[in-house]
């Protein structure tokens, strides 16, 4: 697994539950080190071990930990640069949803050895969509649910999201877009470092 993914999980656990929890997880997972390097590649088994240990220490289902991870990736101030990169995807939440097919390609442009799962958005008519995530690590769909929930907030959209299980290696997420301009979204300046406008 790419170090960026492992490092994200580490930052999520540390920023959300404190350094002590992270150290306990790292020990339980048998990492043998304190911190993932974001630019190195690690054995997939380490990621699984960390997620398993985190679920155990937090006494919560793995899926809900993953969903919180997704929300954290978009909404925590430490990861503002990532939120910005996601916001480049579209001018509003619907536009963003429609750009998700491009997400693996976009991440590839930035980090060529970062392989994200394939994403496909299917329009079910009306305001209903299904997002299909294929070929990712188990539970990636739950991370996507967290990301989409936080991005809907970010754009000021009102959306209902549901993880609909896994079928032949593909996870399905139901999206019901109730209102794409429900609230004032968070500000996004196209140019980095702009001071509002």
């Amino acid at each position, binding site marked *: 697994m790419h170090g*960026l993914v492992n490092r994200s999980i580490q930052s999520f656990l540390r920023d959300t539950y404190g350094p002590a929890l992270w150290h306990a997880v790292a020990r339980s997972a048998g990492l043998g080190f304190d911190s993932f*390097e*974001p*630019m*190195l590649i690690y054995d997939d088994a380490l990621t699984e071990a960390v997620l398993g240990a985190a679920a155990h220490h937090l006494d919560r289902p793995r899926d809900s930990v993953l969903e919180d991870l997704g929300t954290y990736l978009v909404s925590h101030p430490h990861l503002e*640069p990532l939120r*910005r*990169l996601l916001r*480049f995807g*579209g*001018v509003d939440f619907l536009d963003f949803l429609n750009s998700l097919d491009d997400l693996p390609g*976009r991440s590839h*442009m*930035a*980090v060529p050895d970062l392989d994200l799962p394939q994403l496909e958005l299917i329009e079910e008519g009306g305001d209903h969509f299904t997002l299909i995530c294929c070929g990712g690590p188990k539970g990636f769909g739950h991370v996507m649910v967290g990301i989409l929930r936080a991005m809907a907030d970010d754009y000021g959209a009102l959306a209902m999201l549901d993880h609909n299980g896994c079928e032949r290696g593909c996870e399905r997420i139901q999206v019901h877009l109730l209102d794409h301009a429900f609230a004032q979204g968070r500000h996004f*300046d*196209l*140019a*980095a*470092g*702009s001071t509002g*406008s």
Partner: protein
Amino acid sequence: MSARPENGARPLSAAAAQRLRPAAACVTDTLGLTSIALARLMPMYLWLGRDGLIRGAGPTLAKILAGPDLSGRDFFAIFQVRRPRGISGMAGLSRHAGARLQLRLRDGPRTGFRGLAVPVAGQGGMLINLSFGIAVGQGVRVHALTNADFAPTDLAVELLYLTEAKALVMEELNDLNRRLETARRDAETEALTDTLTGLVNRRGFDQELEALIRQGGPFGLMHLDLDYFKQVNDTLGHAAGDHVLGAAGQRLRGEMRSIDMIARVGGDEFVLLLPGIDRAERLSAIAERVIARLSQPIDYAGAPCRISASVGITRSSAYDAPVAARMLADADAALYASKHAGRGRWTLWHDPGKGPPRSG
């Protein structure tokens, strides 16, 4: 629009005609476009009349030029065409129809643009499409543009995304490099340091001796062995022995200059390098001082540990061309002579051809 000159239009130059030659017959057909469609297709277009005055502009360009009504303003008063050189009116612009243009705002932030001008059918005017080129980040910042200011076909937003993503990746890589460099230095220091005394180890000493020989300046070398150390170890245990070694290292450090190198090269063996000192009198005086200091009892858990030191000395000036292995062997031989003569003594190695040996 058409590439053919019509009523009142300037004839295209041969080069411009070549650039604008149709790829297929239908392209020469005149295309009717509303200004709304044009604005959506090319939000940074400018339509110039044959007099060079602006007759229409795309919404993004209007925003950049801070005026919804640009009509009637002189294009050449607002923009400077930087490349190709020498375009200051419609004739020049027409001559370079279809070619890449570089332009700049004359006033304000002097934003740079890349442009393309083509003739407009029937009017003698020209249509210019502009973009920021690679300076898009600056353009977007200065003019406070948003995603909606670019056509969906424009890769400007992707360029901004990529610029930002690459900067983040570079930052991560730089951080990684810094951490690796720190780790490398720590590992190197560790590899050259004796962990018990904090003094330099054998490897570090060898490097320093070679460096001194390469530099060619005078220096002294002492090989020092603790006397009675084995007794301390045998009677009071290894912990006491380690304590004595640590204390001996500190005392040596205290007696030497900061530029001198003190290395622990064996169990109770030390070597000292003294750059710039090669006179026998000074070296023997330092040796005596060191021996006296090491002969003072070292306290360990209330018990005084009594040791002393034997020293063998040599110096760079004793050789025509100093060689590390030879100097070490000679210092060792002198040390052996000190031990043999009753310990707590120093001996200066001498070339048998150059006078009597000295010791004390």
